[in-house]
């Protein structure tokens, strides 16, 4: 395995193409812009298409069309741009069109947006939040697999550190196992056969072959997301067995927490960490088990307390949950502020251990 020194955005673009992504459409917004530039530079050589969408709404709907026609397709943006895409993400969840949405977020304030969504209807979006560039490379490919497996739009939750850090990585196609045949794709050959195909959120079917209609279809979609919830949650944890204090964090923040927890353990503290790898499905059962024996559960995230809700829902004892994160944005508005720093995180953990709640 040879390692190449690549910026995150380049590595993620290359990984997407290695996964078979052949259509990308996006609209610049920092720190997503680097991924768009890389896609536009790399797609032609792979025989794919990258379009400069004139808006995020157009970008996501182009992507929906490309996916409906059978391509592995993706779009991306961050924050506001992903907000503009919500109608189409919900639509794709309900009409079962698979694609990947790269949210190269500016911070961790899009947790609710990713896990609750701003679209309509009973849908969910599988969301993977890698902690560093090598994991982002793997998650990129896993997301295309999960999208196809479940015929659903899925979300990559990145950030400025993932987009802009240079890391030695190796990019090759990963095999996640067999997938169901794409026998639903609109390829244009159904016309005049009496069995023409249809992708329709209402699933009314054709006059000669009625579909389940909205009631039956949307129940089935809800059941599908229930089933995904049961089997697709992923997490990582360490030192849970002897921990009195457990720190919960996701994405890049979890990498910082991991480092600080190691330091504190070296100082003799009985402390561990828990990282939801999938933000949805949230690894609730695993968190319940991990928090069963601990005295305090500290939640560190760079927002006003969003994942906090999920931790409170699932912690063995919700009265043990304390929030030690907060909103922290760089002057530019485009990156993390001073809270994303090991000494600061260490101080907040220690303050919580010695009795304070919110520092």
């Amino acid at each position: 395995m040879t390692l190449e020194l690549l910026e995150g955005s380049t590595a993620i673009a290359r990984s997407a193409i290695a996964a078979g992504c052949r259509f990308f459409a996006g609209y610049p917004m920092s720190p997503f812009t680097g991924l768009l530039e890389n896609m536009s530079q790399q797609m032609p050589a792979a025989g794919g298409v990258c379009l400069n969408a004139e808006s995020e709404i157009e970008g996501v709907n182009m992507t929906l069309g490309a996916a409906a026609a059978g391509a592995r397709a993706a779009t991306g943006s961050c924050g506001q741009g992903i907000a503009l895409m919500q109608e189409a993400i919900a639509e794709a969840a309900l009409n079962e069109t698979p694609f990947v949405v790269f949210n190269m977020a500016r911070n961790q304030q899009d947790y609710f947006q990713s896990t609750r969504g701003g679209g309509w209807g009973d849908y969910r979006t599988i969301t993977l939040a890698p902690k560093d560039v090598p994991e982002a490379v793997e998650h990129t490919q896993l997301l295309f697999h999960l999208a196809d497996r479940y015929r659903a739009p899925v979300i990559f939750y990145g950030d400025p550190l993932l987009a802009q850090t240079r890391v030695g990585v190796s990019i090759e196609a990963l095999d996640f196992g067999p997938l169901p045949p794409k026998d639903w794709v609109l390829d244009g050959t159904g016309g005049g056969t009496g069995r023409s195909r249809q992708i329709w959120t209402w699933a009314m079917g054709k006059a000669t072959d009625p579909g389940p209609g909205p009631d039956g279809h949307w129940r089935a979609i809800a059941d599908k997301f229930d089933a995904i919830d049961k089997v697709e949650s992923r997490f990582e944890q360490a030192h849970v067995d002897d921990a009195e204090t457990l720190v919960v964090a996701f994405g890049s923040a979890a990498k910082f927490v991991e480092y600080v927890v190691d330091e504190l353990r070296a100082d003799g503290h009985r402390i561990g960490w828990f990282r939801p790898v999938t933000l949805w499905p949230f690894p609730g059962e695993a968190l319940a088990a991990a928090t069963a024996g601990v005295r305090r559960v500290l939640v560190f995230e760079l927002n006003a307390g969003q994942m906090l809700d999920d931790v409170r829902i699932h912690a063995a004892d919700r009265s043990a949950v304390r929030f030690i994160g907060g909103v922290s944005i760089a002057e530019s508005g485009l990156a993390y502020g001073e809270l994303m720093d090991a000494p600061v995180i260490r101080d907040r953990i220690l303050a919580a251990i010695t009795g304070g709640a919110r520092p």
Partner: protein
Amino acid sequence: MSVIDTSQPPSQPAKKVAEFSSPLLLGEHSLCPGCGEPVALRLLLEVLQELDIVQRTIGVVGHGCYGSFVRIMDVDVLQCLHGRAPSCATGIKRVRPDRAVFTMQGDGDMVNEGLQEVLHTAARGEKITCVLLNNGVFGDTGGQLTATTVLGQRTKTSLEGRDAEAHGHPIPVADLVAGLPGTAYVARGTVATAGSVAQTKRMLRRAFEAQLSGAGFSLVEILTMCPTGWFVPAPDGPGYLADSMEQAYPLGELTT
């Protein structure tokens, strides 16, 4: 021109004057008597057959009364979000360049909700054909003012008639699109008379030919009767269209 008195049953029930059926129709349409949209659908299906592209065509249908055609047209179809058909069609065409790709949209869908989509798609010169069914109202939601409602026209949200001061001016979208480089063929027809039906079919055919030859973007705007949304008796639809919409939106080919 009379306005319907809805307190009484219709005094002039619609009469079926002709019967057409396409092998690409899987069932009866469920639209109002006197509606122009089913006529436009028939023309579109006939053109697909005559060009022999039925088994390599993908349609993208927006939100309006024509949305129910998805159930009866024997063509591969994506039923997309309101206004977004040209973007979805772009994605489809770019990954399947050897297919014929069309959109079916209304004035509310294309000119209100999705004006940005259609203009950008035309400017990119996407090799797709957009079919606009323009009846000057939101038919599906019950006859409210759209961006193409002509000045003076009474709708449920412009009871005294469209007034430029209060409601702004109608947008001639086909003319806008015709002015963009990247556009290969743009025309405006109607289905109000037998002669115009034949002419509109020729326009649709040329639009698909422009797409298939790779010349660029094509659009056919079809003025369609909506007696229900106009609150006129069904038989008055074509006359009302000729007196109102056709005056504001001259028929003919807009590209040379």
